[in-house]
């Protein structure tokens, strides 16, 4: 399945070894950003099908966005295929290798962040979560549109200030290790463009 879904430059052994070397030393905490990661034809279809789904409005002190039900419960064939690949033994083994973190299953939901939507600083820690991921499906975002995924520098496991920010880019996979240091946020969206993604966690 990896052959069908993942871009060739990320598939071979040397590529896996290079990724495995860079992930643990990334600052401010282990992470990687893999551009053009999926087959462009397939991920375009995933985007199109995701946009046809129903998204529920969610708001709390921490966030404001729209979210689908767990993708495993959706009846859409393309999204089911993508989720089956993403949570497969083969892909979990690939993620385990490149992050040097043993994982064996994943969950997944679709998200839309519209104008003023946001997710404030938190570390994602919850029983079993090992690697957090975002499959970015937004198109046409620039820095001034907001919606960046931002990472905090920490001191004694408390967030201090933002030190890295990643503008949403289509067909990019973000991975980061969940730990007491993994404080991050999604910056407020400042545009009428929609920030679309599939996101969740790998568990181990």
């Amino acid at each position, binding site marked *: 399945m990896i052959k069908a879904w993942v871009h060739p430059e990320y598939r071979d052994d040397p590529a896996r070894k290079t990724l495995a070397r860079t992930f643990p030393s990334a600052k401010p905490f282990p992470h990687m950003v893999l551009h053009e990661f999926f087959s462009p034809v397939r991920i375009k279809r995933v985007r199109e099908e995701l946009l046809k789904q129903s998204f529920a409005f969610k708001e*709390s*002190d*921490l966030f*404001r966005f729209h979210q689908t039900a767990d993708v495993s419960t959706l009846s859409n064939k393309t999204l089911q295929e993508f989720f089956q690949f993403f949570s497969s033994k083969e892909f979990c083994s690939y993620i385990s290798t490149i992050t040097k973190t043993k994982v064996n299953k994943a969950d997944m939901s679709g998200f839309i962040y519209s104008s*003023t939507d*946001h997710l*404030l*600083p*938190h*570390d994602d820690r919850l029983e079993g979560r090992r690697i957090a991921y975002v499959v970015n499906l937004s198109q046409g975002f620039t820095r001034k549109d907001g919606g960046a995924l931002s990472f*905090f520098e920490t001191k004694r496991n*408390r*967030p*201090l*200030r933002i030190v890295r920010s990643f503008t949403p880019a289509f067909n990019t996979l973000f991975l980061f290790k969940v730990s007491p240091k993994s*404080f991050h*946020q999604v910056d*407020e969206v*400042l545009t009428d463009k929609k920030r679309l993604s599939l996101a969740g966690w790998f568990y181990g």
Partner: protein
Amino acid sequence: MAELIHPQYFLKHVLLAAAQQFAKNKSIQLHQFLLPETYKKAALPLQRAALREHYLPDQYHCHELKTIPMVVKQLQRWLKSKEAATLVSTLVQKKVSFKESCLCVYVHKDYTLLHDKNKEPPGYDVIIDLTTHWDQRACGHHSYVRNGQELVRVSPDPNTLAIVHRPAPVMKFVKYVNYHAGKDRRIALEARFA
């Protein structure tokens, strides 16, 4: 201190109606609370006053004033007075006294989060709103929640005094202020009575 407050809030029938409303809703917002002159003197300089950032990103991000204008100091003294305790006690129909207060400024990107470390003792929250202009789309409201369910929302509203009953399981947060705020400031003199 009576010269600060609009005289209607010394009228028995007004206070009785307000107390009945509070008993029903467990919250109340009194409009035109300060005399127009007092409000102008307090609120206008606050829009230009120098601010200091105050933050622990996983708990709150807000601002405080570097120096507090005299008329605001007067209001802070009033909150500690017997007169204020009597007014709040009349409205909540229970003898209460002043416990603590702070002057909080919320601008674009500010918020407070529900966090175990921010748990406040229960009581009656009093919010004097010294905001001058606010686009309601900007949020920045106080939200009172129990088990994730919003019970009361106090929206920014110039020259109001809000009182909210906050028993132990109810917690409050200030919703993230989004870009619709522009350069506006939500300024709230917040106090707790118990």
